């Protein structure tokens, strides 16, 4: 089985390549990246990518697929349908399922569901502590044997500094990154949005920037102490960006991600008690948005990850302080990231780097590149196509997006995983 993708502009940040190229895929791997027109008459199947960008499939290192346990919000199938529609060919799913992914059996179950769905690659993240309780280390080695790519108690900040120290030490044996949700739960104190004038005016309990800052500072100190690989999830504050910048300058093994909503929206999105603007960490102020953008620009922040957090309508159409935290993100991430290119903050290649090879390297995976021999995970998108987001038309089982009705530029046309078309904008193109 061979496919030629011709006529497009290939952007492959891992190889510093950006230019007109044709792509030959054979047996699920990239066989050749060739000058335009040089693959005439080759390929059992041909995709015309004229006017389109051809890039490595996007990798989202932070999603919640909700299976097992919360299938009413999302399943591995619906989550990966959303992923491939958004151009993602691999997603790392967090452990806060029910039961928690804190043992090999749950990891194996998730991977079985992924095989059955047969769309995007699913990369399970194992729990750091048993039951996400923050007390005892989970059986990480057992989960490594089944295929976890990182450990994290995402959603449940690890308040015990000694547990975090041991996790960083222990995971170094497996070369696993420890992904951390940085929020001091005492300082956050049940807060539901960013602390500041807006929270005060709306009468909502605020979460100060310091709740994130103190935890980032602690974990950087522990990365220094242990030499472990620390990955800071969904950075939201200017103080955290500064600390990470300093840690990197020092040469520590610290990496970081930011979500599209944290670099796009401010706390003002909460106005009117909009529960689709409620997430943890909360949307912050304009100065924080500028700081995370600065971090993206200068490389302090390595990756863009969605923190795709599906919740049922009944968990969002409630009083603000009772609403679930989180928003879906897989189908809106690419156009939001492309806004950074339009603003002139980052080149197209730099944005795609943070969505492909950087997360792949953090997770130690061979994806995120179009190098010959690499798995043929490819996204083909139209960088100029304008479209409007309609929450009800999202493929995710949940529709909790703060971007309903937004006008976007940039749309995914084809997504290939292992050389197989798993998403095509026009249905008749499926099954190539």
């Amino acid at each position, binding site marked *: 089985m061979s496919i030629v993708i011709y006529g497009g502009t290939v952007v492959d940040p891992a190889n510093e390549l950006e230019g007109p190229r044709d792509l030959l895929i054979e047996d699920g791997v990239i066989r050749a990246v060739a000058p335009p027109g040089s693959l005439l008459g080759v390929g059992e199947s041909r995709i015309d990518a004229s006017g389109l960008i051809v890039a490595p499939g996007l990798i989202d290192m932070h999603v919640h697929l909700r299976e097992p346990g919360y299938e009413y919000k999302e399943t591995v199938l619906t989550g990966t349908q959303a992923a491939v529609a958004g151009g993602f060919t691999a997603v790392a799913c967090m452990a806060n399922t029910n039961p928690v992914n804190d043992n090999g059996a749950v990891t194996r179950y998730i991977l079985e569901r992924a095989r059955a769905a047969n769309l995007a690659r699913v990369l399970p993240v194992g729990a750091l502590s048993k039951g996400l309780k923050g007390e005892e280390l989970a059986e990480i080695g057992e989960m490594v044997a089944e295929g976890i790519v990182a450990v994290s108690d995402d959603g449940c900040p690890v308040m015990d500094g000694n547990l975090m120290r041991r996790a960083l030490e222990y995971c170094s044996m497996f070369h696993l990154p420890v992904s951390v949700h940085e929020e001091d739960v005492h300082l956050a104190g049940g807060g539901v949005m960013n602390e500041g004038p807006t929270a005060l005016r709306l009468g909502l309990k605020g979460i100060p920037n310091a709740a994130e800052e103190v935890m980032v500072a602690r974990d950087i100190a522990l990365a220094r102490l242990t030499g472990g690989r620390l990955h800071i999830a969904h950075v939201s504050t200017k103080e955290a960006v500064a600390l990470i910048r300093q840690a990197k300058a020092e040469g520590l093994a610290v990496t970081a991600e930011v979500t599209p909503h944290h670099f796009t929206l401010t706390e003002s999105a909460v106005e009117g008690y909009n529960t689709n603007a409620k997430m943890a960490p909360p949307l912050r102020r304009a100065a924080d948005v500028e700081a995370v953008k600065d971090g993206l620009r200068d490389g302090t922040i390595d990756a863009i990850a969605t923190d795709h957090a599906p919740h049922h309508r009944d968990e969002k159409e409630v*009083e603000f302080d009772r609403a679930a935290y989180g928003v879906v993100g897989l189908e809106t991430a690419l156009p939001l990231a492309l806004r950074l290119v339009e603003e002139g903050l980052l080149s197209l290649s730099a944005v795609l780097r943070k969505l492909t090879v950087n997360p792949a390297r953090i997770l130690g995976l061979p994806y995120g590149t179009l190098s010959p021999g690499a798995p043929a995970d490819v996204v083909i998108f139209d960088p100029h196509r304008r479209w409007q987001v309609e929450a009800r038309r999202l493929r995710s089982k949940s529709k909790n997006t703060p971007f309903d009705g937004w006008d976007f530029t940039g749309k995914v046309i084809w997504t290939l995983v292992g050389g197989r078309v798993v998403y095509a904008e026009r249905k008749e193109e499926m099954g190539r």
Partner: protein
Amino acid sequence: MFHRRHFLGIEGLSRDELLFLLSMAESFREISERAVKKVPTLRGKTVINLFYEPSTRTRTSFEIAAKRLSADTVNITAAASSVTKGETLLDTARNLIAMRPAVLVIRHPSSGAPHLLARLVDCPVINAGDGTHEHPTQALLDMMTIRACKGEIAGLTVAIVGDLLHSRVARSNLLALTALGARVRLVGPPTLLPPEFRLWGVEMYTDLRSGLSGVDVVMALRLQRERQARNFLPSVEEYARHFCITPDVLAEAKEDVLIMHPGPMNRGIEIDSQVADGPYSVILDQVTNGVAVRMALLYLLATQEREQAEARSALAQELPMRRHAEALP
């Protein structure tokens, strides 16, 4: 002059809207002074009081206001804690609205709960207090009380003392006071007085004596005893030592100072009994005015658009005080 479908907060109301509501309320006050305290204005209409928090004063005030306008009233007291197990707020409200009330009055421990209903159900909603956000009818009755005693609100200096962080009364009052041209001082311990309040254009004091110096009005806020458990305060007693309005500290204020409290009072904690019961206290006038304010709002929201003209003429006949009839829309 007031064409809103809902009454959710003081925020966003113009000075003219506030003055209109106050003059409406003043015109309704007379009904409660009559021997027969009833007009037929809202006959055949139903007002539902949906209270998710315990309340004596506000719930009774809304009920009396509705009854004096001849509306039928239904009071529902729900425990918000059962929401997670049982029916959602939205479902409860949709079921109530299906029975066609004219107005839904809601008090709820979650900030923004009335806004949720206003957005998703088809019925005028009055906010009777939402979480730590607003208590707009309280602010109106407080403005009415100050106006009755002082004439104008513009130019007055008003000190609001206590737990500003968690007080919906304080938020609504400072919005109303500043909109009407008063100078507002907030007085309380730093744990309960976040610096962001400065953006409202208020002065902030942590020293009660200097905070009360030369003020025209003092509003004491109720101190919730559970604040101690969350480390906002070492103890209620220590709070009282620093922030209780006593006759001694009140000597700092103007000679004709007004003392206000939204109730229920913790005597000896935020306010000394001698002050609460003293000659400057208008605490019971506040309660009396509350009925008039709520009558005005129920009238405005229950008789929307087409019906309003009809009800207006009926009401004008009912009100013998012609000078107030001019203030009607």
